[in-house]
Structure formats: structure tokens, C-alpha cells
């Protein structure tokens, strides 16, 4: 029997939703009550059953903890899993991204605020700062979006262990091809309308989220602050794919886990109206890599809320991957037919910051 577990990170704690049919759900929680849960990773590599959680308390600061029994018990490293080295004179504010490495089953990557990329070689218990990116000469010019200045997207290449893309807002996309020693901006073609003297700068873009195509790893999709793009060269240059969308603004983009050129966006009216177009929560689906789009809103409400950059995901169901979106007014919707219809998974939760799903065979 297959079980699906959806981790729901919110402004005031973590909930876990469990289902064997993805129709009726049992909600467990909260864990870390009154902490902002910003990043989640289910890690089942190498026989593990690990849930890694990055959260922060407004009083007691950031923390990273893991559970190997799905939340019955939690472990926190006594010295802190992520600590900025003394010479940086920097303190961790939050961990916004946790990603399993596709090549080494002990390696986990973390993206933090301030803008740090971290590598763990013990499945997320301790991390080391990537100095190549930390010491990048562009760092003083990287900015802070509303969510803070953070590495919010970490995409290791599944075919080249020396290659990785990270993204931040503002700052944009950076790539390494030498295992993290050196990093180059990869923002050609991404518009930065807010830059007064050069709207097409080398870096400084407000990239909100990037997703990788599952069939062609050098193909990427980007939801930018005003603009939706595709890259065919592993994140070096980008082409607009916003034609046909109701708006070009949004926070997130999700790629289908197995089918190439299939992706979803969650549109937001504009950068000054953070509500869905026509106040109708919806996803925009493309089956051709962004050449055409169609609206999917069946089961989604008329509402004035929106969906944040990590509050949408898919699961690993072998037949039809589920699609999950969580809203800032504390609801999570699930689709088991690729977005054609949604049902309410959870309601009356705090603002949803992130969702991640695990399929257990």
C-alpha cells in the first residue's frame, strides 16, 4: 500500500498530512509550534527515513533539526548544524532550502539567509559553507527581497556532479561548473525592470524560483519578478515564455517529476497586487515547455491570498504525481490528476511557507 506524506511548513509550525488514497488526509502536528518552518526535506536515500526541517523562532533564532521517525522524536546538533565561520563575522538568520544531492546519498545542500550555500556530508547533521560563492565579488551588491536575502533555490545537476545552479532575490542565478570553486552569473535575458540605469544587468535580477526539466537536465524554467523564462543551456541564457499567461508575476514554478516540458506556475496579479488574477486561485499548466499555457482552477477558491515560492510541490506517486499548493491563508490543496481538479487537504492553518511530499511504497 502506498502512503503519501505531505509536510506543511507554516508561520507557526509544521504539520504532517498522511493519506493512503490522497483523498482523505490525517493531519499531525504542530511540531515546532510558534516557529516559522521555512524548509523541508524528506530524505529516503540509503535506507534513511529522515525528515530535515529548517525553522526559526522570532525569539530564539534559527534551528535545523531532523527526525528519523517522522516526527516522534527530533534531533538537534548541539553546536548547530549550520554555523557561520568566525572569520565571516556573520550570524545565520534562516535556512530557506534543503536539497538532496543526486549523486552522493550522504550529501545534502542548504541555502541560507544571508546568502550562503552549504554542503553536508553526513545527511544534514553538519554543514560546511561554500567559500567560492560566499567570497564572490558580487556579494556586496546582492540585495534583499521581501523574504530576506537568501539562497532560496539550489539545483545540483543530475548528470554532472561538478555543475549546480543557485538563485537568490535579488542577485539572480549563479552557476558553477567546477564543483563550487567558482561561480558565474547566469541571468542573460532575464529582465530587471527596477534597475534604473540597466534593465538587463549581468546580475541583480529578482529571480523567485527555478525548476529543472526532468528529461532534459539542461532545460530550466524560471519564475522571475515580472517574467517567466526558459533556459536551454543549463541556466546561462534565458528566453521569455510568458506569452499566453494571465500575468507574468508569481513566486513559484514546479516541474513535473518525470514528464519533460510539463510545468506549473501559480500566477499573482502583479508585484504591487499580491492576489490571484481576478481573485481566483489557479495554476497555469504547460505541456510544451512554456510555449502554451492553460488555466487550471477546478476546486480552487475565489480568494485574496497567494502562494509563496516553496509552497508548491509534487509527490513521487508512480502513476500520477500529486500536485500540492499551500496558501498564505493556511489552506493546502491537492490534485491527483495533474492539476485538472483540486481538493482541500488542510484548512485553518497559519500561513503556508513550504510544502514537500513523500511517497512511501
Amino acid at each position, binding site marked *: 500500500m502506498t502512503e503519501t506524506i505531505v509536510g506543511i511548513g507554516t508561520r507557526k509550525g509544521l504539520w504532517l498530512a498522511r493519506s493512503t488514497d490522497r483523498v482523505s488526509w490525517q493531519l499531525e502536528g504542530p511540531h515546532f509550534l510558534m516557529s516559522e518552518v521555512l524548509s523541508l526535506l524528506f530524505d529516503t536515500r540509503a535506507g534513511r527515513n529522515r525528515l530535515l526541517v529548517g525553522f526559526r523562532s522570532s525569539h530564539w533564532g534559527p534551528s535545523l533539526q531532523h527526525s528519523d521517525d517522522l516526527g516522534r522524536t527530533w534531533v538537534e546538533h548541539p553546536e548547530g548544524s549550520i554555523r557561520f565561520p568566525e572569520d565571516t563575522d556573520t550570524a*545565520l538568520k534562516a535556512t530557506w532550502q534543503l536539497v538532496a544531492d543526486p549523486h552522493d546519498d550522504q550529501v545534502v545542500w542548504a541555502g541560507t539567509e544571508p546568502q550562503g550555500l552549504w554542503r553536508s556530508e553526513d545527511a544534514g547533521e553538519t554543514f560546511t559553507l561554500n567559500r567560492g560563492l560566499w567570497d564572490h565579488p558580487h556579494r556586496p551588491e546582492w540585495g534583499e527581497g521581501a523574504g530576506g536575502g537568501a539562497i532560496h533555490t539550489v539545483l545540483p545537476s543530475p548528470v554532472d556532479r561538478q555543475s549546480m545552479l543557485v538563485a537568490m532575490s535579488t542577485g539572480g542565478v549563479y552557476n558553477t561548473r567546477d564543483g563550487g570553486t567558482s561561480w558565474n552569473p547566469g541571468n542573460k535575458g532575464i529582465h530587471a525592470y527596477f534597475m534604473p540605469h540597466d534593465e538587463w544587468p549581468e546580475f541583480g535580477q529578482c529571480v523567485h524560483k527555478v525548476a529543472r526539466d526532468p528529461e532534459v537536465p539542461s532545460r530550466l524554467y524560471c519564475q522571475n519578478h515580472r517574467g517567466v523564462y526558459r533556459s536551454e543551456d543549463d541556466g546561462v541564457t534565458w528566453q521569455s515564455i510568458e506569452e499566453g499567461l494571465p500575468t507574468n508575476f508569481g513566486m513559484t514554478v514546479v516541474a513535473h517529476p518525470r514528464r519533460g516540458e510539463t510545468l506549473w506556475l501559480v500566477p499573482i496579479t502583479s508585484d504591487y497586487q499580491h492576489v490571484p488574477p481576478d481573485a481566483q486561485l489557479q495554476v497555469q499548466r504547460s505541456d510544451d515547455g512554456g510555449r502554451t499555457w492553460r488555466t487550471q482552477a477546478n476546486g480552487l477558491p475565489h480568494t485574496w491570498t497567494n502562494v509563496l515560492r516553496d509552497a508548491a510541490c509534487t509527490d513521487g506517486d508512480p502513476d500520477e504525481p500529486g500536485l500540492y499548493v499551500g496558501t498564505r491563508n493556511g489552506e493546502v490543496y491537492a490534485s491527483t490528476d495533474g492539476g485538472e481538479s483540486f481538493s482541500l487537504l488542510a484548512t485553518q492553518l497559519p500561513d503556508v511557507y513550504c510544502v514537500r511530499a513523500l511517497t512511501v511504497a
Partner: protein
Amino acid sequence: MTGMSARVVIPGVLRDLAGGAHELTVDLTEPVSLGEVLDGAFEPWPILNSRIRDERGDIRRHVNVFVDGADAKRAQGVQTPVGPASTVHVINAVSGG
């Protein structure tokens, strides 16, 4: 000079991170800085320390520390002197929503 102990009173919500203790003591023979007292008090309890101070040793923004009733952030911060008979209160700030 006879040795005495400065007391560090822990907020109730964090006492599990100090083995359930209501307060920790640090033996002193002369005044030292608040930072040194917290170093001594929290040395066996690193997770408690991380809740109160960041990795630079700075007291977190929404945590207040009082030395003998005076707010250390309005005095000399972690350099505020703590005497051998002083009481240090660690208090979560009245903030949030």
C-alpha cells in the same frame, strides 16, 4: 576574597534545554563581563546558548538580559559587568504576533 556565585535565571520555556534547571550558577571572585558569565553558564548547554545568543555571541534581538535588574542592552551589552553576587535574568521580549 571569598568566591561567590552569579546566578543566571533561565526563562521557563527554555528550562528543558538546561536539564530542567531554573537557574545556573557561575563561580566568580571578581566582576567579569556578562559575555563571560554566559559563556560559563551555558558551556554545558550549547543548544540553550544558541537560543539566547547567535554564533557571534550577540544576544538575540528579541531576548532581553537583565543584570541586577538593569537591561544589559541599554548598558554595555555583553560587556556589562557582572559581580560575584549578581543575578542575571534571561527573558523573552514582549513581542510577536
